[in-house]
């Protein structure tokens, strides 16, 4: 069985969406977007998917605020956030590095993270680049905090962190990540060397399971066309289908 690194990531996310009712995906998140659209097909249409910025895969009719109100009502089960920096307490930084406001590197901004991270029960952190410059001991700017004081209303928060090298779970009680699986081609030592924060792990860490054949068929067929509607460049360059041999793991 051969598959691309992106297909492995999509498969990992798809497993985390099993049994949910409604997942929302941001406008610049093609891999989570592809995973959500695939999970919808695997659920026989039970899972609702809202892809922000998509016409076809977005049923909201009450303007930009509806997604946020919907999350506050508890109607969104899972959402995805990334980060230019992510630290070991699951704080995320979408603003920039160095001082503020005159940052050394400036990123687009916090979007809805400062709200959705509090309200969506299963927030999956996703960042493909797994390097010490991304996974830092402490973020330079907190767009959204990983944990809150007990008096703060917070039904939601971090659930997992998926990178190009590994999958972590977030332990809310310990306020730390725990290494769950390492992707094929990488070792626990690789993950430790490329992570700037400390995390928990068991003595033996499994390899991230390969994508299921049923999922691969979806990704190389109908889901690719659905993804192209919102993420045309990603669909054209990454989800190239079965002729794309050199990109395989």
């Amino acid at each position, binding site marked *: 069985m051969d598959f691309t690194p992106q297909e492995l990531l999509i498969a990992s996310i798809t497993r985390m969406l099993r049994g949910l009712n409604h997942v929302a995906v941001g406008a*610049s998140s093609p891999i989570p977007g592809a995973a959500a659209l695939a999970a919808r097909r695997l659920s026989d249409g039970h899972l609702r998917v809202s892809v922000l*910025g998509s016409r076809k895969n977005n049923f909201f009719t009450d*303007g930009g*605020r509806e997604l946020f109100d919907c999350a506050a009502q508890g109607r969104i089960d899972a959402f995805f956030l990334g980060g230019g920096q992510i630290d070991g307490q699951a704080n995320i930084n979408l603003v920039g590095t160095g001082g*503020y406001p005159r940052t050394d590197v400036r990123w*687009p901004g*916090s979007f*809805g993270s400062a709200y959705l991270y509090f309200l969506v029960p299963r927030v999956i952190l996703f960042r493909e680049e797994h390097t010490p410059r991304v996974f830092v001991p402490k973020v330079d700017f907190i767009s959204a905090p990983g944990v809150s004081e007990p008096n703060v*209303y917070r039904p939601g928060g971090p659930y997992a962190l998926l990178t190009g090298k590994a999958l972590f779970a977030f332990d809310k009680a310990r306020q730390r990540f725990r290494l769950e699986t390492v992707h094929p081609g990488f070792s626990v030592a690789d993950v430790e060397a490329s992570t700037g924060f400390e995390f928990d792990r068991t003595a033996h860490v499994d390899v991230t399971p390969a994508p299921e054949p049923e999922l691969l068929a979806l990704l190389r067929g109908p889901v690719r066309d659905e993804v192209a509607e919102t993420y045309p*460049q990603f669909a054209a360059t990454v989800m190239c289908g079965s002729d794309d041999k050199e990109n395989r793991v």
Partner: protein
Amino acid sequence: MAEHGPIVSLDALAAQVPDGALLAVPPDYSGVAMEATRALIRRGVKRLHLVAVPTSGLQAELLIGAGCVETIEAAAITLGEAGPAPRFSAAVKSGAVHIRDATCPAIHAAFQAAEKGIPFMPLRGIIGTDMLRYRTDWRTIQNPLAEGDDPIVLLPAIQPDIALFHVPLADREGNVWIGRRRELVTMAHAAKRTLVTAETIQEQSLLEDERLAAGVIPALYVSAIAEAERGAWPIGLEGRYEPDAAHIADYVRTARSEDGFRAYLAQHVLAGRRAA
């Protein structure tokens, strides 16, 4: 064209945005008045306080690069799949523009407060972010209705001087059709004046058709409308045309340098209105 009633020329519309205005603009998926933005840059508008509701792309990028903006308030400025906005990033780093970072629902809530004529809106989340640390206008209070300890953030109302956006369809009475893009309704309700460009201006009142009426902002809220075919270009208009991705990708390459940006402005903005 004789100018009477709400229908005006594009330049007359741009002339209604004074220097120093608090100007509200919509996100890229919602109808961005790019033709009017180019007219604003040509007229040399200055010291804008630009509020993106809640994000912006090439519109904020061009206005910032052209030196029209003193303060930008947004949850994000991004060119989407084309990448980061180069002149925005450069202006923030150099301090040429003052940034007020926000989060999407905070901006929506601040406009909802203005729409209701109330001083603030409470909102969940936000506590523990660095935005809250730097946004000294945002306040945390104890929920006065709770029995126990329950901190909650208050966002002051944002009442823009001008809301500016682009729509598929308007009529001669000044009604504009926005369909499901309801953030435009909130913007128009909150703003002192609303300026609109439209792909098409029709003779028949939009309110006569019950299927359209619920997606209409009535003329009460609309100060002026200018016709602008493909008025969102190079950004798309949902249901009408796609974004010009090749143009935006070219822009990102060109505008990495200040000189490249100046060349882009000269060619695509200052040279005058492109043929539709």
